[in-house]
């Protein structure tokens, strides 16, 4: 059945595969082209821990074979692809023999939990404020809100987070200074644990929120302002609809579409974690895992994290590409 919808979906899917393949190749190549190799890091760690290692060479030789690092890069690539297709992400080099899946499974829920809530929250707040700023005629108030939120969004995140921690976790003790949950509670599905998780995520979430709201606000504002000049709004006003109704039903809805696209794209990126947040707040997320892997040149973990991150973004983009035409009748399935 040659419907334009099917052709469109297939075309998009082929694009998805091509881009995914390209991204996987880059993810494979990047860590390995880095100078420094994982076993030197392992050897150095053993050396500093206990004053030198004789016979280190044999240990290295064994592990080189074990991780398949003695083969040339193309063979390694083929092996990697084969492993990937069978769903095996390989063993972690720095935490041998734990498989990479286990390490990832421990940290992904935290990243997703924190970043999902903060992304959605900052999106909502940013959009609401953006509508307000775009719609209202109060120049001064608009200016203040815009400048303040823009100002927060450009402060280097590291400094903002440090200052927040200093003020709210150490000087005025409202929030805990770090960690995913209180140290005396074990992860389980109890109310205590969930409450502890929520409590510990407030300050990291606040720090991300302050920085992220600005971007959504600006884009929403320009969308609303551009819609203000549209003819159909004039028509609705002439019909006698109240201003609020016009704003909610026409302006907001139309402006929402591109924002939803933006939201979906940034949701796709949350799997990559927020490294600085996790470092400062000692939050057990994907970013710190990647950073540790980077320090120890653990190729398998780095590849896996990059893989998940790119697949997340690509998947979100693919879904949007498919769903967008359904939502916005102005866009049709034909190209051009």
């Amino acid at each position: 059945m040659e419907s334009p919808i099917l052709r469109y979906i297939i075309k998009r899917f082929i694009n998805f595969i091509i881009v995914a393949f390209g991204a996987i190749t880059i993810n494979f190549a990047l860590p390995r082209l880095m100078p420094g190799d994982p076993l030197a890091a392992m050897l150095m760690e053993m050396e500093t821990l206990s004053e030198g290692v004789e016979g280190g060479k044999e240990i290295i030789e064994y592990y080189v074979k074990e991780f398949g690092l003695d083969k040339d890069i193309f063979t390694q690539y083929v092996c990697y692809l084969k492993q990937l297709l069978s769903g095996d992400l390989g063993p972690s080099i720095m935490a041998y023999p734990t498989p990479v899946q286990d390490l990832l499974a421990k940290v992904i829920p935290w990243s997703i939990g924190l970043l999902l809530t903060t992304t959605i929250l900052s999106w909502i707040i940013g959009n609401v404020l953006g509508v307000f700023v775009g719609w209202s005629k109060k120049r001064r108030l608009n200016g203040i809100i815009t400048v303040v939120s823009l100002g927060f969004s450009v402060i280097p995140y590291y400094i903002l987070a440090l200052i927040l921690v200093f003020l709210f976790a150490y000087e005025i003790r409202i929030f805990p200074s770090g960690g995913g949950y209180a140290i005396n509670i074990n992860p389980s599905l109890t109310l205590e644990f969930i409450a502890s998780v929520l409590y510990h995520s407030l300050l990291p979430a606040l720090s991300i929120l302050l920085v992220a709201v600005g971007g959504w606000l600006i884009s929403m504002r320009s969308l609303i302002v551009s819609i203000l000049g549209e003819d159909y709004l004039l028509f609705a006003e002439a019909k006698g609809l109240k201003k609020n109704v016009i704003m909610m039903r026409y302006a907001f809805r139309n402006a929402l579409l591109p924002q939803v696209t933006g939201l979906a794209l940034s949701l796709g990126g949350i799997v990559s974690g927020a490294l600085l947040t996790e470092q400062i707040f000692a939050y057990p997320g994907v970013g710190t895992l990647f950073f540790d892997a980077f320090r120890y040149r653990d190729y398998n973990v780095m590849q896996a994290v990059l893989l998940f991150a790119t697949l997340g973004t690509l998947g979100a983009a693919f879904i949007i590409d498919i769903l967008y035409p359904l939502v916005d009748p102005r866009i049709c399935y034909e190209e051009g």
Partner: protein
Amino acid sequence: MSSKSLKFSLTITAAMALILLCSEMLSMVNNVSAQVYPREETIIVPYRRVSDPTFYNFYMPAGAWVLASRGGRALLQEYFFSYDIVTGKLIPELATGYEYERDFSAMKLYLRRGVTWNDGVPFTSKDVVFTFNLLKEWAPKLCYSTLVKKWVKEVVALDDYTVLIKFTKPTARFHWLLTAIICAAKIYPIPEHVFKGKDPTKFRNWPNPVFTGPYRVIKSDADVAVFERRDDWWGIKVLGLMPQPKYVIYKNIGTAEKVAMALEKNELDLGDMDYSVYLAAREKNPYLKMWGIPTPCNWLVDVNVLKYPLNIPEVRYAISYAINRTKVAEVMGGLEVVTPVSTCFPLYPSVQKFVFSDVLSKCDWVLRYDPDRSIKLLEDLGFKRGPDGIFVTPNGTRLSFEYLTYSEPDPMALAIRDDLKKIGIEITIHRVDKAVWEDLMRKGQYELAFNYASSPGIVSPYDWYKKFHSELYSPETPYYKMNPWQEEYDKLVDRLATMRDTDPEAAGIYKRLLEIRLRFLRKIPVAARFEFIIINEKYWTNWPAPMGYPGAYATPQWWWHKFIYALCHIRSKVKAPTLPPKEIPEEIKKSIEELSAKIDKVSEELSAKIAKVTPAGYEELKATVAKLKSSTEELSEKVESFSAAIDRANMLGYAGVGIGIIAIVIAIIAIARKPS
């Protein structure tokens, strides 16, 4: 529109109030359950996070990471021996001693009696034999297994508490592999009854990891590990040691700035801080104290001696004269914490006695700051200063090098760059990632580089000198032959391998080796920083004093093995100290006093009798001894009779007292038996 904006701002305010209210409630929830680890019974220290926190088999890399990151070396794992840096003495722990055969082809290891694993099984020689055989069999998959394979031919258990280790080649230094010198020892025993039949490369030793140490793991997550003291630890009885904190928590705080904040707010008991930050924080928080010992790893400038013109020794001497070590000390923290050094050896007495001042004055380029001498040396070589002030060699090479480093920020590199600029050598600082730095250092792809003296020979300078023996050279990692001294060097090092440091010949050899190293000067020593930590004394005090204090092997460095001794040394500021023996009930005390009075009287009679001992008196002596024996038996019976009613801690107390009394008596008997 104004009503709308009013409504809007009200909504926002309401939302924020709601969030704050929720956080208050949640914090209350947290505080309620936070009573589980009372602060005055806990020690909290910061450490790194671990990706796989449930791997407690320390011979695999994942386990080694766990071991390194959270006090496993101090709280869980115990070693055969430990080492006191100050006095240079060996401290017996799981082993009580060792004895080499005359030809150093084998070693007897005497194990301590009374040691038990934390599941109650006693520690005996079969665990040690099992460990060595496992390491040999699984080499090179387990950490340090190659060492065992290289040196150990066979391990035999002579009895339950003695092990005979036969070597493949004679060596006098095997026992150092079993000693925790700084952080940990390389070889340590693992329980046979747990590991037998399991694949050691996959086995996790979790849950309920089995160790001999005084703490057990009650929680192990990626960022937090909580340990609780075991009251059935063997050391309480046998060694009389009682670790004071009931709980020890290793927590991942985050970045260094947060550690400083946490220390200042009394949320940590130990931590790291930059020295200047410490000085500022101490004003605000008088509980902070500094504890430091000289670092085992001195800072050096490593020179690539294969590159022209760095291959000329005089150029290296010129660089060494030009570095103002005092200024480097100033910018790296100040002279209170950084000391200029002249050799690669740490400032510990045990090795410093092999740094001979007459050799240093002969090779004074490591001792003095003399930039004029540098310039003269370079000019004598025929180098000329170019128009930009940088020296140029006769064949046209400019003295412009790259200085490789990994620290950021690196004030030392900046100071050295300025110093060398003054004498006409230009360096550009090339900062790389630490892993890259290690790689480049290993491959020899650098010109000048920052380096530190890793494994510098804390026990004996021999460990440092043997690293430059030509047998360790390989084509991929050139160790740079010390021309023209390499042959002489090799011979001297080989001689040293067969003797002890206390031999009279050894001092002369060390002198010559020091001179060779200083003349070759591939590594230019610069400075050594005090490795210090900050102690917060709000909850715990009586931390051991640093170097110079007798018995200062108890270190509060919480990633070293000897942290456990510090934990026994400290006292809580809030609670009374937990002492091994409990209060003995009054009646027992009285009977013990009566009996000890009796024994005193008897011993007085005995000494009177000894004064006039005759063969007839000998029979009397025997009778008195028998009376003493029965008294002590009476005493021990009394002690036994109360063990059912009183818990073990009390019994230990009586046993201790009783053993003490028996010891006195036996001493007296021994004296009585000796011809006076």
